Structure formats: structure tokens, C-alpha cells
């Protein structure tokens, strides 16, 4: 269980002001790398927490759907252009980012994932594919600057990042659909 220490070290490292500031200075790294890493940290910390409080997860998230719902809501909040700006301008929103992404997104997702039926899992991926296409479209073709802290070019880069991620998810969905089909023949 040494692994958990590396995760905690990574978590603390990412929260160090110089590291956080550096990552936040580029819009696409802020959203698609820093935020993703924080959620991933929660994902990695989850097994330990589930072992420590098995009853809690069993009772409150028996079928995985409450956890899924929490994950979706928290991620939707963080895709709002406003949230990104405020994380830069207000210290308590920044703190909320550091806490909410691992513990209210990463942990519940890990716990829910193994409990969910595959239809829910695919539903989640389809939901995020659609959301990312919409966000990509919004960031690329918005005539306005959506974030006051970033340049328009950063915004367009982020938009393409969203679209690319959506494309990857479509490829995954197609892949799993085809392999499922092949297995059933």
C-alpha cells in the first residue's frame, strides 16, 4: 500500500501555489490537465477510503447511481466558464476545486463504476461526449471572450481540446460496441 503515499504526495504537489499557478496559466492545462489530475487523485484514493468506510459507501451508494449523479454535477459545475475564472480570482473557489474534484468526483466515480450496469456506464460516456461537443462548439465559435482571465486564443485551444476528447470517447464507444457485437456472434 505504498502507492497511496505517492498519490498523497502528488496531491500536495499539485496544490503548491507555484505548481497550481503554472498549470492555471494555460487555459487548456487548467481544465483538461489540472482538473483531470485532481479527479484522478480521488479515483486513486478511493479504494483505501472504501476499505476504511465500507458501510458508508454500501449504504449511501448501493447501486452506484447516487455517486454517478454527484460526479456529473460536480464536473458540470467545473465546465462552466465562470467557475474557471472564479477559481483564479477567489481563494475559496480554488480551495473548493482542490477538494471537490478528488472527493466529490473522483472517489464517487470509482465507487460507482464497479456497481453500475454497463448501460449506465455507456450512458455516462455518451452524456460526456455530447457535453464536450457542446462545450467545444461553445469555446471555439463563441463570438465573445468567455473567460476574463484568458486570451481568446486560449479559449479556442480549449474548445479543440474538448472536441478531441469527444472524438476519443466516440472511438471508445464504437470500439466497445463492435467488440461486444463480435463476442455475441
Amino acid at each position: 500500500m505504498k502507492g497511496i503515499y505517492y498519490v498523497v504526495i502528488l496531491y500536495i504537489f499539485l496544490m503548491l501555489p507555484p505548481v497550481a499557478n503554472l498549470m492555471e496559466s494555460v487555459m487548456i492545462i487548467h481544465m483538461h490537465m489540472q482538473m483531470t489530475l485532481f479527479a484522478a487523485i480521488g479515483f486513486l484514493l478511493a479504494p483505501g477510503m472504501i476499505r476504511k468506510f465500507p458501510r458508508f459507501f454500501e449504504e449511501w451508494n448501493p447501486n452506484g447511481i447516487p455517486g454517478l449523479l454527484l460526479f456529473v454535477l460536480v464536473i458540470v459545475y467545473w465546465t462552466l466558464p465562470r467557475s474557471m475564472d472564479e477559481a483564479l480570482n477567489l481563494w475559496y473557489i480554488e480551495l473548493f476545486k482542490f477538494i471537490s474534484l478528488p472527493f466529490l468526483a473522483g472517489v464517487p466515480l470509482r465507487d460507482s463504476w464497479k456497481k453500475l450496469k454497463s448501460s449506465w456506464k455507456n450512458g455516462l460516456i455518451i452524456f460526456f461526449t455530447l457535453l464536450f461537443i457542446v462545450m467545444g462548439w461553445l469555446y471555439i465559435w463563441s463570438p465573445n471572450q468567455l473567460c476574463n482571465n484568458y486570451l481568446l486564443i486560449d479559449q479556442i485551444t480549449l474548445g479543440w481540446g474538448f472536441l478531441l476528447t469527444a472524438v476519443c470517447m466516440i472511438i471508445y464507444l464504437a470500439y466497445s460496441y463492435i467488440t461486444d457485437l463480435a463476442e455475441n456472434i
Partner: protein
Amino acid sequence: MMVNKNKTLLSYFVIAVFGLVLLYLGTDGFTAYTSEKARVNQLKEETPMFPEVTLEDHAGRVYPFSEFEGKYVFITFFYSMCGTVCPELEKNMAEVYEMLPEDVVEEGIQFLSISFDPERDTPEVLDTYREWLGSDGETWRMARIPDQKELDELLDRFGVIVIPDEYGNFAHNSAFYLVDPDGRLVEVMDYQETREAAATVMEIMEEGEEK
């Protein structure tokens, strides 16, 4: 198992409430999804005073902002090297200018374009810009604020965010600002809706006269 079911229902409920509260707070009650919108809403609530600054206009005249006391002032922030938004912003400002009745423009309201690039926007440069826009130089003036401290104070108070990029350009938010005769910011308008802006200005001025 009964207890378990209730707990599951409760957890749906708690999470749904948490999510709604989070999104509600994060968007000021579903009204502001970008911080620009939130900024405008906040400015309209706060109605900050225009700080005491010294302007230097396109003709090289130097005077304090209080020169315009007793008049409404229609303001935009720009810089002349800007190739993207500013020309559109200033052209739209010209449209609003054209839409207002002549006597209003001559007596009741001052048009003022303030440059946030005082280093490059010297009076000569501003005068060229003025000519390009076809402004008369009196009822619509171009000005810079030579004192960087005063300029920053104004930008900060009016929520104008200016980020220099590596090519000597600036990223900035744009809007029409209306300051009342007492020097208070009373309205921030969408610079792309010129007709609406002109109507709003007339409305506010008429209301002001009635008082």
C-alpha cells in the same frame, strides 16, 4: 433492506439539492454563466463613482474628468493598435452617436473613448483615430490617461480587464458604459446591440430629467 432503500432515496435527494445549490450559487441563480455577465450585474448594483483622473485628449488638451460634470458621459475603453474588437466597438459607438437626437448630443451627453494604452496612444495617434471615426472632436473625444496609477484605478473600478499578450496586443472585455451627471456609473450595455443601447441611453436621460 427497507432502511437501505430510504437511505438511497435520501442520498439522491441530498446530492440533487447539493448540485442545485452549487450550480445556483455558481451562476448567481442561473443568471450569469460567465464572469463577464456576473461583472456587469455587479457593476449595475454597485454603481461605482468615476475616479478623479486627468485626461489628455486627441487635441492635447489636459483636464480632469470633472470637466464633464452635469452631463451624461458615454464611455468605451479601447486602444488604437487593436485590430479585432476595438474597431467594431468604436464603429458601434459611432452608430449610437448617430442614433441620438442632435440636441441631446450637443447638450446632454458627452461621448468619450478612453485608451488604456497611453504609451502608444499619444494625442497625435488619437487624433488620427478620431478622424477615421469621423468624430467632431468636441461632443465625442478620444483621450488617454497618462498616469498609469489613475488608469489602473479606473479600469479596476469599472471592471475592465486588460491582459497584455506577447505580441503587444491586449485582450480585454468590451462594453458601453454610461456615467451620470454626478459621475456615477449607471449602466453597462452590450456593445453589439447599438439600437438597444441608444434606446437605453434615451430612457435613462429622460428619467433623469423628470427627477
